[in-house]
C-alpha cells in the first residue's frame, strides 16, 4: 500500500505538470480531503442505525442461526475462523444485504464482520487470509439487482431496463468466483506480510507504473 500511495501521488503530480493541469491537481487535494470527511460523516447515521439493528439480530440469535446454516460453505472458504466465532453470521448478513442491493446496510454488516475477523487475527496491523478473502468477495460486488444502474436507465427512458439484469448477474458471478478462487490460491502462495516486506515483489519505479496500468 505504501508504494501504491506513493506512485498514485507522484504520477498525478508528474502527469499533471506535463498536461499543464497542476492547478487542478492542487485543487483536487483540497476537494478530495473534504470529500473524504463528507463521506465518513454521511456514514455516521446510517452506520449507527444498522449497527443497532445488527445488535438486535445478534442478541436474538439471528446471526448464530445464519452461521449454522452456512457452516458447510464457510468451513471451506473461511477455514481459519474458529467455529465459535460470530464472524460467519456477520459475513452472511453482509452478503445478503449486498445481494439485495442494500449497500447502506451491507457496509456496517461488513465492518462488523471485519471486527470479528480482527479478533482472530494475530498481527493487528496486517490483514489475515480470511480478511483478504472477505474483502475480495466485497470488491467483486455481488448483487442480484443493480438498483442504481436500473434507476439511471429508467431515467433515460430505456424501454426494457431489466434486460441488463441477466448479463450483469453473469458477469458479477464470474468476477466473484474469480476473486474467491484467486484469494484461496494466493493464501497458499503468499508468504510475506505485505508488499514492501517481500523483496521479490518490491516494485521498481518502472514496474510500479506498469502494474498500475496493467490492472486497469
Amino acid at each position, binding site marked *: 500500500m505504501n508504494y501504491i500511495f506513493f506512485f498514485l501521488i507522484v*504520477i498525478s503530480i508528474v502527469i499533471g505538470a506535463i498536461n499543464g493541469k497542476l492547478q487542478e491537481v492542487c485543487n483536487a487535494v483540497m476537494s478530495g480531503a473534504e470529500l473524504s470527511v463528507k463521506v465518513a460523516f454521511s456514514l455516521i447515521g446510517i452506520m449507527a442505525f444498522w449497527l443497532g*439493528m445488527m445488535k438486535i439480530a445478534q442478541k436474538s440469535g439471528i446471526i448464530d442461526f445464519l452461521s449454522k446454516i452456512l457452516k458447510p460453505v464457510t468451513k471451506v472458504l473461511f477455514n481459519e475462523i474458529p467455529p465459535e466465532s460470530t464472524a460467519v453470521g456477520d459475513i452472511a448478513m453482509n452478503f445478503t444485504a449486498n445481494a439485495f442491493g442494500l449497500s447502506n446496510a451491507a457496509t456496517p454488516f461488513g465492518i462488523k464482520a471485519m471486527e470479528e475477523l480482527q479478533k482472530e487475527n494475530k498481527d493487528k496491523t496486517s490483514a489475515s487470509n480470511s480478511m483478504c478473502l472477505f*474483502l475480495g468477495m466485497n470488491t467483486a460486488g455481488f448483487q442480484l439487482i443493480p438498483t442504481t444502474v436500473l434507476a439511471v436507465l429508467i431515467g433515460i427512458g430505456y424501454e426494457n*431496463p431489466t434486460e441488463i439484469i441477466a448479463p450483469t448477474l453473469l458477469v458479477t458471478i464470474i468476477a466473484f468466483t474469480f476473486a474467491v478462487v484467486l484469494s484461496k490460491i*494466493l493464501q497458499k502462495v503468499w508468504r510475506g506480510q505485505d508488499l514492501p516486506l517481500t523483496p521479490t515483489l518490491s516494485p521498481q519505479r518502472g514496474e510500479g507504473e506498469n502494474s498500475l496500468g496493467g490492472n486497469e
Partner: protein
Amino acid sequence: MTKILNLISLWALPVLILLILFVGMIRKVPVYEEFTKGAKDGFKVAINIIPYLVAIIVAISMLRASGAIEMLANLLAPLLKSWHMPADVLPLTIVRSLSGSAALGVFSDIANNLGANSYATKLAAVMVGSSETTFYVLAVYFGAVKISKIRYALIVGLLADLVGIISAVWVCNWMFG
C-alpha cells in the same frame, strides 16, 4: 418481470428491518436498549475510517485531475477497439475500481448522450452494475479495523475487476452484439 423486480427492491429493506425486530421481540430481546447499544459504535467506526479515506480519496482525486486517466485511455484505445469496446466506455473501465461516484457519472453521461438503444449504454450498465469500487471498499473495511498492511487484498480486487471487464465485454458481445 419489471414489476416483480421493483417489488423486490421496494420491500427488501422493510422486510429485513421487520424480520430483525420481530425475531427480537419473540425472543424477548430489549430491542430499544440493544439498538442504542449497537448504534453507539456508528460514530467511532466513521471516525476510524477517515484517515484511510483521506489517503485514498485524495490520491485518486489527484490522479483524476491530472488527466492521467484520459492519457491511459488514449494509449489503450487501439487495443480495446479490436475487442469491440466502444471508445466511450473506455474511461469507465479505468475509473470503475477507483471511484464509485465518478463511475456513475461517466455511466450517466454515456446513457444520456448515446441513448437507450446504444450498445455502449448496455455495456456500461453491465460494467457499473457488476462491480464495486475496489479502492473505496478497501479503505472503509480495512480502515474500520485499522489494517494498514493489506497483503494481496488489492491484487485480488483489481484482478477481479479486470476479469469483470473482460467478461462484461464478452457477455455483451454475445447478448447484444
